[in-house]
């Protein structure tokens, strides 16, 4: 019974989400990742006037059998530098995906809420403690790093040649691209601290 409910609900949501205007503005997108309506792929555009502007962020969405009475499981596939999203796993800390989920919410609600989260981080309820402390202690550095990640992973427009150069130096030492960038980001782009952290 519940399985049928989850599937029929997703089917109906597809009609609802697909016909709405956010799609036309390329703001949010939703598509199936398998044939039985349990795995989906979401896409949100980085909100304007944020470090994520003009970036495109992909999401992995798993719909449980008890959906919509229980929330979908959602995580970022696109690497992102954000206090409430793990820079390593993409796991998200958002109340509506946990205790504050309500059955009347839809995947569209989820995508729009995530978009709102990109525009208004909550560093006091962090998923990634390192990012959150940078956000609070060195906001300028946080913005530059987030823009850089948006550029590298989400097709954002802002290039940071000095960051790229530092990543390259660590790659020359045999470190892989992501580990190098993550270590540098964690250490406010101080290459010595990042090197110590890795080796």
């Amino acid at each position, binding site marked *: 019974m519940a399985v049928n*409910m989850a599937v029929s609900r997703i089917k*109906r949501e597809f009609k609802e989400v697909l016909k709405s205007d956010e799609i036309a503005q390329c703001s949010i997108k939703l598509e199936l990742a398998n044939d039985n309506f349990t795995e989906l792929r979401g896409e949100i555009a980085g909100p304007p006037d944020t470090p994520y502007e003009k970036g495109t962020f992909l999401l992995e969405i798993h719909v449980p059998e008890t959906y919509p*009475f229980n929330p979908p499981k959602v995580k970022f596939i696109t690497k992102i530098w954000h206090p409430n999203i793990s820079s390593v796993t993409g796991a998200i800390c958002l109340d509506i995906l946990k205790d504050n989920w*309500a*059955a*009347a919410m839809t995947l569209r*609600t989820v995508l729009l809420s995530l978009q709102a989260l990109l525009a208004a981080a909550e560093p006091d309820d962090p998923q990634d403690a390192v990012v959150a402390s940078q956000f609070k202690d060195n906001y300028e550095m946080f913005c530059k790093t987030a823009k850089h990640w948006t550029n590298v992973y989400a097709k954002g427009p802002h290039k940071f040649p000095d960051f790229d150069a530092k990543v390259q130096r660590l790659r020359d030492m045999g470190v892989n691209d992501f580990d190098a960038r993550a270590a540098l980001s964690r250490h406010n782009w101080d290459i010595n601290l990042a090197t110590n952290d890795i080796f």
Partner: protein
Amino acid sequence: MESDDMDYSDDDDLDDAMDYYGNEDDIDNVDPKKTDPEFFMYECLTVDEVEKVLNESVEKLSNSLKITPSLAKVLLNEHRWNSNDIIDRYRDNASNLLVSSRIKSGNGKKVAHVTLLCPVCIQSHTFDKFQNLSCGHSFCKNCWSMHFEIQVSQGISTQIRCMAAGCDVLVPEDLVLSLISRPQVRDKYNQFSFQDYVKSHPELRFCPGTNCQVIIRSQDLSSKKASCKTCQTSFCFQCGNDYHAPTNCVTIKKWLTKCADDSETANYISANTKDCPKCNICIEKNGGCNHMQCMNCKHDFCWMCLHDWKSHGSEYYECSRYKENPNIANESAHAQNLIHLQAREALKKYLHYYERWENHSKSLQLEQQTLERLKNRINEKVMKGLNSTWIDWQYLFTAATLLAKCRYTLQYTYPFAYYASMDPTSSRKDLFEYQQAQLEAEIENLSWKIERAETTDRGEIENQMDICEKRRLTLLKDFFPTTTSDMNS
């Protein structure tokens, strides 16, 4: 005191003495609340009895506020079953109370439902298929019942909420039960709700015994010892841990956590063997008594401090009290060394108390074994018909039970003493340590006598029992934990 089932919580002898000196008024004599620091009024109830108690509160409240029993239940569960408080707040501002109790929506106006599209299944239904909640949010009955079933399957009952986004209005019991069709789910819902009600009720506690259905009720909300009359499990009524007077609830929790964290460091000291301080032969502790006698050289010594037992007759005090090392500051001029020394000193201090705590706990178990051995030996004697019957030896089991009770209290004096020792402002520390040492000395004395019961005079043992229990009660009277403990919180 000829009775075989003497009740040692009654202070008959002490009271007699007080009467003799005429400095204790009669009212105190008959009021156990004053004479017995551990006096605790409570009852062991069955699930049915508790349901009756709860239903009476529900009925009363629903009558006086003219609301459904189902809403009365929500109010009571959200306000720790304090009917008077609920009625006062209802009279003061009913709307505020209903909003804060999550019976009504805080958004003021009811949401008017105009469409016949259920937002959960996103399907249209006829008007009669819909059911709305007090907040005005309306969904089809099919969605409601699926919501309820899934919540119950996840252990949620009284906290089932509305399905609308951002609405935290609770679904009352009558609506839930009217829309759950499967009997097993209804049973589960009732079972979980009952658990929530008991947990939110300050006067009720589930018995922590395994598979025990008993619920203990008391109006005395303090850290007294509750004993389940069905499964015999005892626990502290306030915090649910093992009974722990004179230590208070906060302190015992801290202590138990510390012991668990430091278990590895503490492990090495809990070995069961020590060398005789005189002839150095290895002695294994096989009884609960700390008064050791070397089998080889007959030297009497104390298991705890390895000093001559003779020095303990009146000075057992030295053994239970941890002596600060006064030279610690002079031992090293180097700051680094000092920090190291202080850390070592802190560990030594902790180990001192832990060792005694652990030792009395072991003694409790060993004394249980001693009692079993005694039973067997007495049984043999009785079977051989050597001029004695079981009744003649009954006093010994009473004595062993009393010994266990005293040693249990003594064990729980050590966490108290440990935290008191770290608090320089605690003024009653010396008195506590004095009473603790007195109790300890008398307990070891009793233990020694019971172990040698066959050759010890019955009157002597009974006299020692009396002394022990009085020491124990004196300490508890002076240091029974209050809710906000003055000395070791």
